[in-house]
């Protein structure tokens, strides 16, 4: 069967035909076959990139999700080596009962190891542990014309740095070896508190980030006037006692893709208002399952379908610390005025641990992420306005989420793009890359 694949945001709508690799030995021949028939291709994991960074220029991808075997698991020292198509969730399934967890995890467990490296994902503990690259021991990189090489900080360090956050352009990652971290419990001690304005967010973040490993905030992206910048701050740490249990609850799927987006100014305003009201003004301490703390959206399978056939775009930017407060206020004002946005808008303070990856997204400062239902006004009005604010602040957008940023913004924000372009495998190119390097 040849699958038809899409990116998570389903925008741009460009169905990809995938040639699956079930065995490591399949990679070379399948890749050659794609080159011969389509010129270029792109490695594709589990399709969790939102925009066009996971879509091949030729619309024919090398599908690596079926390559999902573990190669070695050392439960004494907490090290796992697995093929690139293994998802973080599959690792957790084995690691948690044995008292281990991922040192860095993004907001979904459905990303593959290869994808986690290629996008250098980060999570709620960025201020403590940096990006996914810091859990890497090494990985194997397969190039179309060289024999496969092992890359780490010491071995082939150039390829290591280029491939981390390298958007799958330097070659195909065949396997990845990562370090895990010890946990005593699968529960998280969490603290929640609501805040009324951005100043309060920054004050909370300063206080909580110093004390807790994980922190993140939900923000009401439609609140304006006095209410602008209101939201709810969540911090957490791994519990010291209680059992080690893998989340067993089956997720409920959104069964179909409705013709129009269910997220509209009316539903959004209502939801955000009720959600904010529900939060307690006092600090609430609770023990919650790791799955609902880290992966709340994974509980709704195919949640991306609620945006309808046209899909959606995610906007995620990071703003340098010195100007973050002012720029954020500007962004929120523009978003509230547009009436567009998402239920889940996320604010997160990023730390100053640098990633070895050249094109890694985070920088010291504050990151804002939210979704917009796709419509024509988005590209002509709102996004250019937001891009200008980010540009003036010296911030940048996240390629893994992006379907719109201009080439000049990208090249300005990621000057190492030239080095990556020089090391790109000539047979690999994405729609994203075609768009931004011109």
């Amino acid at each position, binding site marked *: *069967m*040849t699958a038809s694949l899409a990116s998570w945001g389903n925008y741009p709508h460009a169905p990809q035909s995938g040639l699956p690799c*079930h065995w490591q030995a399949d990679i070379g021949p399948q890749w050659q076959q794609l080159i011969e028939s389509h010129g270029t291709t792109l490695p594709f994991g589990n399709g969790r990139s939102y925009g066009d960074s996971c879509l091949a220029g030729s619309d024919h991808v090398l599908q690596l999700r079926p390559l999902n075997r*573990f*190669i070695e*698991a050392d439960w004494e020292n907490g090290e796992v080596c697995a093929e690139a198509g293994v998802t973080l969730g599959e690792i957790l399934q084995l690691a948690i009962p044995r008292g281990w967890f991922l040192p860095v995890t993004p907001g979904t467990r459905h990303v593959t190891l290869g994808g986690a490296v290629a996008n250098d994902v980060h999570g709620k503990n960025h201020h403590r542990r940096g990006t996914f690259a810091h859990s890497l021991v090494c990985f194997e990189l397969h190039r179309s014309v060289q024999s496969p090489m092992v890359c780490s900080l010491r071995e082939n360090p150039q390829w290591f740095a280029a491939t981390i956050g390298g958007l799958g352009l330097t070659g195909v990652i065949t396997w990845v070896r990562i370090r895990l971290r010890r946990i005593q419990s699968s529960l998280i001690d969490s603290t929640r508190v609501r805040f009324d304005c951005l100043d309060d967010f920054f004050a909370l973040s300063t206080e909580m980030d110093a004390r807790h490993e994980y922190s993140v905030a939900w923000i009401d992206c439609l609140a304006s006037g006095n209410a602008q910048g209101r939201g709810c701050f969540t911090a957490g740490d791994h519990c010291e006692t209680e059992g080690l249990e893998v989340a067993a609850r089956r997720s409920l799927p959104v069964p179909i893709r409705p013709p129009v987006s269910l997220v509209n100014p009316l539903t959004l305003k209502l939801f955000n208002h009720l959600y904010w009201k529900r939060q307690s003004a006092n600090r609430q301490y609770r023990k919650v399952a790791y799955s609902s703390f880290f992966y709340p959206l994974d509980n709704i399978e195919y949640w991306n379908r609620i945006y309808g056939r046209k899909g959606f775009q995610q906007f995620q930017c990071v703003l340098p610390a010195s100007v973050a407060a002012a720029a954020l206020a500007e962004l929120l004002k523009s978003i509230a005025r547009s009436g567009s946005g998402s239920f889940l808008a996320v604010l997160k303070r990023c730390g100053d641990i640098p990633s070895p990856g050249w094109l890694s997204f985070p920088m010291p400062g504050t990151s804002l992420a939210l979704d917009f239902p796709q419509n024509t006004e988005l590209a002509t009005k709102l996004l250019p306005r937001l891009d200008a604010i980010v540009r003036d602040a010296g911030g940048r957008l996240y390629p893994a989420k992006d379907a719109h940023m201009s080439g000049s913004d990208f090249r300005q924000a990621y000057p190492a793009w030239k080095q990556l372009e020089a090391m790109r495998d000539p047979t690999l190119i994405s729609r994203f890359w075609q768009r931004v390097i011109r």
Partner: protein
Amino acid sequence: MKKILIVGATSAIACACARLWAADRSELFLVGRDEKKLRQTCADLQARGAKRVTTFVMDASDIAAHPAMYEKCLATLQTVDICLVAYGSLPNQHACEQSVEQAMEQFANNGSSMIALLTLLANRMAAQHRGTLAVISSVAGDRGRPSNYLYGAAKAAVSTFCEGLRARLFKSAVHVITIKPGVVDTPMTLGLALPALLVAQPDTVARRIVAGINRQVAVLYVPGFWGLIMWLIRLIPQPLFKRLNL
């Protein structure tokens, strides 16, 4: 925790079943043609919690090699709780129509070699008076369709053989389960143009197979809706069926 022999262990369906058994700390004896693939499968299952995994390289169409394989398996596992016979290949129907040699080779691979193996396994299991023989046949064996009747004929032979064997071994407290997968997203079906709704994922299929083995089902369609589809297809009368290009 069980002791399990899998012949055709690198097939996608077998791998997915083996992962479920590995999570249960089972002991596995894997038989396959490709040493490298067997090694990779073995490492995967060990990481997933299998108590012990042993590999054995054998081409199942080489009937003479079967007894030595089973001796080694028994020496390793001591006793066998489940034998999963999961090997096979999807022949090119058109090529089989043109070449007697190919037709016979494919029939041997999917049909007669399996009957040979099952004959051996049946006697050994009967001697131990316990265990389950789980055999992957196919929905293709339910009716001879013009697009795939050589494979279908081989699988029909296997299904019928298993039905008889089930009745025979029942008296020896050995259970035989005939598993009939529909279309599963595996390397075997790569490149076939199939409606996405009908295509099942190997791990979904594996969960049903492992549960079916535990419940001692006689004939198991996977996914279950194929039972209904094949019932309807069997109802089509000959005068109409021969005019169709199923």
